[in-house]
């Protein structure tokens, strides 16, 4: 009986140690695990001209096709700060105003020049009719607007 108890204690201690070590390691690597920076984080992060990812919502009414037909200019916002983005190439299906995006590229003259733009999907799933009905009832607007609303409330 005592041997079983000793094994159980050993196991518990080992798992506790392992858990603590993992938690410490993950906390230490916090900055490297984030997939992208938000426009607000960019204000404090020193990025220089190395490659990084920028994530946020595509600002309403900011998307403009350039005259050359392949370049798109838009602004990425987290409602507190905004960054100008320019991207040359094809955009994913889910790219639209008010939708989340993650863009990879670097800063050049205050503009974020993206090499790749990925659409970020949110956790909401609903049929088109429900989305229509919610919009009409004014309960649900697109993510950008609703987030501004909650931000104001706070």
């Amino acid at each position, binding site marked *: 009986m005592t041997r*079983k108890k000793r*094994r*159980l204690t050993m*196991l518990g201690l*080992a*798992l506790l140690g*392992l*858990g603590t070590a*993992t938690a410490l390691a*993950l906390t230490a690597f*916090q900055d490297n*695990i*984030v*997939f*992208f920076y*938000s426009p607000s984080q960019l204000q404090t992060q020193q990025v220089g001209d190395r490659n990084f990812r920028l*994530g946020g919502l595509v600002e309403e009414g900011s998307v403009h096709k350039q005259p050359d037909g392949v370049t798109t200019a838009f602004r990425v916002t987290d409602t507190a700060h905004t960054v100008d983005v320019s991207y040359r190439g094809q*955009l*994913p*299906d*889910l*790219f639209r105003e008010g*939708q989340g995006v*993650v863009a990879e590229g670097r800063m050049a003259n205050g503009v974020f020049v993206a090499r*790749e*733009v*990925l*659409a*970020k*999907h*949110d*956790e*909401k*799933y*609903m*049929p*088109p*009719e*429900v*989305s*229509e009905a919610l919009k009409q009832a004014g309960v649900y607007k697109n993510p950008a607007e609703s987030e501004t609303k909650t931000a104001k409330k706070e």
Partner: protein
Amino acid sequence: MHRFANPARFLRLSAALLPWCAGATVILMILGLWLSLFGSPPDYQQGETVRIMYIHVPAAWMSLFVYTNMAVAAAVGLVWKHPLADLFAKAAAPIGAGFTFVCLVTGSLWGAPMWGTWWVWDARLTSVLILFFLYLGYMALVNAFDDPQRGMKAGNVLLLVGIVNVPIIKFSVDWWNTLHQPASVMRMGGPSIDPSMLAPLLAMAGAFTAYFLSVVFLRLRTEINQRKIQTLRLSAAADGTRG
């Protein structure tokens, strides 16, 4: 013979449960597939692509569920030396690896049109890939020893070390910003998924669970019977030499 006292009880119990689990798998799978493909609406943003989720999400749940069960079995095997616990982990591993593989592949197929990429190294995707390697590593390790008992012990230790990855997978989308969306069903404040889309998801999750139970029972029964045959052969050989 007392070594097989518990396995014998398990053989009787699993023989009674197996037809029910197999039946539930068939019924829930038919119901789930019908709901996923015909009985649910397209999404307001993703359109028909949303249907990939009905395979992807249950597979992801199962990959975590199976691993957690294996890790609990590993702890029981290490502390109480229960022979059935070791065998359970060994029997469940390929099924869990299969679920993880399905989760990774369907996620990639969804990501290509929706995100615009097959794969990114964000926290969620990377931690699930690590889970897949843990399954493969466990299977390789268990079979790498001449003495099966030692192989089981090494495998159990690996399973318990790997358990730290399970909460990392679950909360990766909350702790760090990732390309993968946060949880829609098991989250604070209730599901953010329409009931018409939750129904096929839950039916498929039920089907996958019943499938797992059926296959793990079958694999465990086979393993126990193999051990029995081996024991009988050994004792027959011992009797033979004694003459």
